[in-house]
């Protein structure tokens, strides 16, 4: 609850910091201290929440799960700021504004993880999206960045229109936006009594969410946007912003539409198959590592969709574990991409001789993304898939997912191969200093700790 207010205030403070502080290092320190303050705020929220609390005219509901998710996502943001703060400042002149926009995105994240009213869902998605359009286009001199921004904006606002239409139709069927209203609950009580209006509303909401998490038939914007935006912002957009939409997704579809799961489960199953297939198969053919990571983020979204698909408590635990391990691992890989002059596979040739630490941390993160045991990615995949098995009927889908994970090992290991076994001189754009190396080691250690003791997150 406090976190929503504090993150918005911090965004404003960062904008003023851009006026008053002339030195970039001061601005960076302010941003890092700000995210630290936010971490403390979410920690207090977590401590204070005894039972489910509703505030702000019953529009926000904070449960222990939500508060824990907020705290973890703020922790990931802190790590992101620590690793990337110098790269964020290198993007352009207005570095304070970039930090400010990221705090506003965090405000949207907190709203998405704790809404109990469709109005807050809509506002949260918009507060999350609009700063992302700006961040995608923040490298003004680069045509690719402009293009990514325009594409993201047109597609994103189109999906907003679809989301709003879904909300309106559900309102038309129930007469309320409140998820805990009697009429609302009664409408979605059983599969037989479902009104056509409400059903089309759910379908439109499903399309809008699938768009925001880049699930398959609606994934086409993802590779272009993630490839075009400045590399310093891509990890933020691909991880922290994306996993929070998953939390909103699972809240709405499990809490409110859970009783009528037979209506939407088949659609999600089809989406999972398409997402895994397109994401993994296209990633195999990429030459650029950044574009490969964009396709792999589509594939990872396919695995996270399993948490929405399976309808039990394991899927909630799996989603939180998957979010954190995917975020940390992606941050590690993108940190390496940022340092390289040429981010194709050839550009990584022989990195292990030149920068052994950078190569080692990247390898650990890549292994986690592929889901190799002893890294966080393994248990994350294990949890979401076992949630689907507990479901019973859809074992074939799980086998398909495991096969696709095997395909993903190919392109992840291609990166490891070019770092360790190919000869070449990997040219670096920026030499990593000791502090950055230490942070990357800490990040990789966290990934391994998650792989050994996943229960610390549950």
């Amino acid at each position: 609850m406090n976190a929503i207010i504090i993150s918005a205030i911090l965004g404003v403070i960062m904008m003023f910091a851009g006026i008053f502080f002339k030195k970039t290092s001061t601005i960076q320190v302010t941003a890092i201290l700000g995210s630290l303050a936010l971490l403390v705020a979410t920690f207090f929220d977590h401590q204070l929440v005894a039972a489910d609390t509703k505030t702000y005219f019953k529009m926000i509901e904070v449960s222990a799960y939500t508060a824990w998710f907020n705290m973890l996502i703020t922790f990931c943001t802190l790590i992101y700021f620590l690793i990337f703060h110098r790269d964020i400042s290198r993007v352009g002149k207005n570095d304070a504004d970039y930090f400010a926009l990221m705090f506003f995105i965090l405000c949207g994240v907190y709203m998405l993880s704790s809404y109990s009213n469709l109005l807050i869902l809509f506002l949260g998605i918009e507060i999350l999206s609009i700063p992302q359009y700006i961040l995608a286009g923040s490298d003004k001199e680069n045509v690719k960045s402009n293009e990514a921004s325009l594409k993201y904006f047109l597609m994103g606002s189109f999906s907003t229109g679809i989301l709003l239409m879904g909300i309106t139709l559900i309102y038309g069927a129930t007469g309320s936006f409140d998820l805990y209203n009697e009429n609302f609950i009664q409408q979605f009580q059983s599969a037989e009594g479902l009104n056509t209006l409400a059903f089309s509303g759910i379908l439109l909401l499903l399309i809008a969410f699938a768009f925001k998490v880049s699930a398959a038939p609606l994934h086409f914007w993802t590779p272009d946007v993630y490839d075009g935006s400045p590399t310093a912002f891509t990890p933020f957009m691909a991880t922290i912003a994306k996993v929070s939409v998953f939390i909103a997704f699972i809240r709405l579809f499990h809490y409110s539409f859970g009783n009528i799961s037979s209506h939407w489960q088949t659609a999600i199953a089809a989406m999972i198959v398409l997402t895994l297939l397109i994401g993994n198969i296209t990633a195999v053919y990429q030459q650029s590592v950044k574009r490969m990571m964009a396709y792999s983020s589509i594939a990872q979204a396919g695995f996270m969709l399993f948490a929405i698909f399976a309808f039990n408590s394991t899927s909630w635990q799996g989603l939180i574990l998957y979010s954190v391990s995917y975020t940390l691992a992606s941050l590690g890989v993108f940190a390496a991409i940022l340092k390289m002059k040429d981010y194709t596979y050839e550009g990584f040739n022989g990195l292990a001789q030149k920068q052994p630490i950078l190569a080692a941390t990247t390898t650990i993160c890549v292994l986690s993304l592929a889901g190799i045991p002893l890294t966080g990615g393994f248990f994350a995949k294990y949890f979401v898939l076992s949630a689907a098995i507990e479901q019973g009927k859809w074992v074939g889908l799980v086998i398909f997912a495991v096969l696709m994970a095997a395909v993903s090992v190919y392109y992840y290991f291609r990166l490891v191969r070019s770092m360790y076994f190919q000869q070449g001189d990997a040219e670096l754009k920026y030499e990593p200093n000791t502090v950055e190396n230490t942070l990357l080691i800490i990040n990789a250690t966290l990934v391994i700790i998650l792989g050994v003791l996943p229960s610390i997150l549950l």
Partner: protein
Amino acid sequence: MGVLMRRNAIIILMCIELMLNAVNLLMVTFSKMHQNSDAQIFVFFIMVVAAAEVSVGLSIIVMMYRKMRSIDVNILNRLKN
């Protein structure tokens, strides 16, 4: 439909606004139908957010025009391999 067919970025933007206005109209209608005013408040929120979105969108289009001298979305294929 306009969003999918048209090639001019500003016209696409206008079509998106049209979609949002359709939602507003439907909201007010349902609000009258159910005899409660929640949806009318929601309409104000949609208006505010739409205004914010347009201001961001138009500035992105201006940035694009300065660089490319065109706002045709067909030339946006530089990112494809």
